[in-house]
């Protein structure tokens, strides 16, 4: 459960988020809004990458500002650009890197990493140079790096922006099958069609909060 309690955020005199109050118990939640509407900032607060300047955020009752490490163990985060998320040269090593605190033995770690890769459409890629993977495979790898940690919540910030249609569908398919609570920031409205709830932000405020169809309709009206 992710809760925002009158959360505000400002850079100098520019208000990014203005008094946002939300309780998100749903399994799959989408965040949409124009560029600069504050949706990425809202998402980054879930694991303490950005701290609110007023109000507070709670993840399962923990405040990311105060208990950052504990919260980040519960929250996985997938960014837009997989190139900056992949830190090791091969796919297997990168997933193993996520596991180095939790699985001490190196052979076990490599085996576990291969399992995670295989479970998400990257079977046999453990020894493959990470930067020679296709864009879609790289994003899957970034996702594997997070899922290996078995978080309770997965936040994705425009995860499909750099992907083609096929890979976008594949990514959506994987998200659909996750046990994790998923919070997705996106401009890809099709991705949200079967979500439980969609929140629309505009100018740092929540302007719609509904089932996908009506929420997306509101967003389209906003742009028109």
């Amino acid at each position, binding site marked *: 459960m992710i809760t925002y309690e009158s959360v505000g955020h400002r850079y100098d005199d520019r208000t990014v988020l203005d008094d946002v109050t939300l309780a998100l118990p749903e399994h799959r939640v989408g965040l949409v809004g124009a560029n600069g509407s504050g949706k990425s900032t809202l998402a*980054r607060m879930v*694991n303490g*990458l950005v701290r609110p300047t007023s109000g507070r955020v709670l993840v399962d009752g923990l405040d990311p500002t105060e208990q*950052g*490490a*504990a919260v*980040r*163990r*519960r*929250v*996985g*985060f997938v*960014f837009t*650009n997989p*190139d*900056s*998320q992949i*830190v*090791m*040269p*091969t796919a*297997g*090593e990168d997933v*193993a*890197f*996520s*596991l*180095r*605190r*939790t*699985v001490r033995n*190196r052979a*076990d*770690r*490599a085996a*576990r990493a291969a399992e995670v890769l295989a479970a998400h459409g990257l079977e046999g890629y453990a*020894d493959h*140079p990470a*930067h020679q993977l296709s864009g879609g495979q790289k994003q899957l790898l970034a996702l594997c*790096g*997070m899922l*290996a*940690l*078995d978080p309770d919540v997965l936040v994705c910030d425009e995860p499909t922006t750099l992907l083609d249609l096929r890979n976008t569908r594949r990514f959506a398919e994987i998200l659909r099958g996750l046990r994790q609570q998923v919070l997705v920031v996106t401009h890809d409205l099709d991705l949200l069609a079967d979500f439980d709830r969609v929140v629309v932000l505009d100018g740092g405020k929540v302007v719609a909060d509904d089932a996908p169809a009506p929420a997306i309709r509101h967003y389209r009206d906003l742009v028109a």
Partner: protein
Amino acid sequence: MNPLGLYAPGTSPLHRTPAGPKLLGLMVFVTVVVIIGTVPWLAGACGVAALGYLVARPPWTRVWQVLRLLIVLAVLVGGLQLWLVGLEPALVTVLRLVAALAAANLFTLTTRIDAVVAAVEHGLGPLRRFGVRPEQLGLLVGLTVQAVGTLAAIAGSVREAAVARGAGRSPTAFAVPFVVRTLRHADELGEALAARGIGDAANDAANDAAGDSGDTGDTDGPADHRAPGAAR
């Protein structure tokens, strides 16, 4: 493509040697090569490095990549030295360079970065009591190696963009976007590492080391409760 080459999977004895001893061996080899200054011995060192390649059997394309780089370097450096200081010193310099670079590349080809990072962490473990954080240094080694490839890729795409705009020769058309994109990459990488709990892990380790004077090898703390592999 990364000019340093990367790990080439294999099962040779060199692949199977643990990273720690191999890294130590490489350091000794390079030190010896720097100290000895006679042509026959250095030629012998080059032979040892070449023998290493025969044992490891990396793919020929990868060997050729290195060889090409070494030849260019040898001709450039050797030519300059020959002109400045004469035949023997030129030979010494070139052979020294070739032996050291060939051995270092062989290490890269036969060793996973993951294993290097683990070896560095393990090797520096005893320094923990002096405030050194082996995890941080291990990660630093891994990221440094990665950075070479990343910067090469950024340079490549920036150069393409400059050429596309007809500014292929302008140094600023290259330098400005290169620096901007490098800094941006650094920002994104920092966020991604933070999201993977990297800074946290260091803090956990430091807290555990402070609170637990006994076995400093186990620094997992609360992470254990959430270990996906804990069931095994």
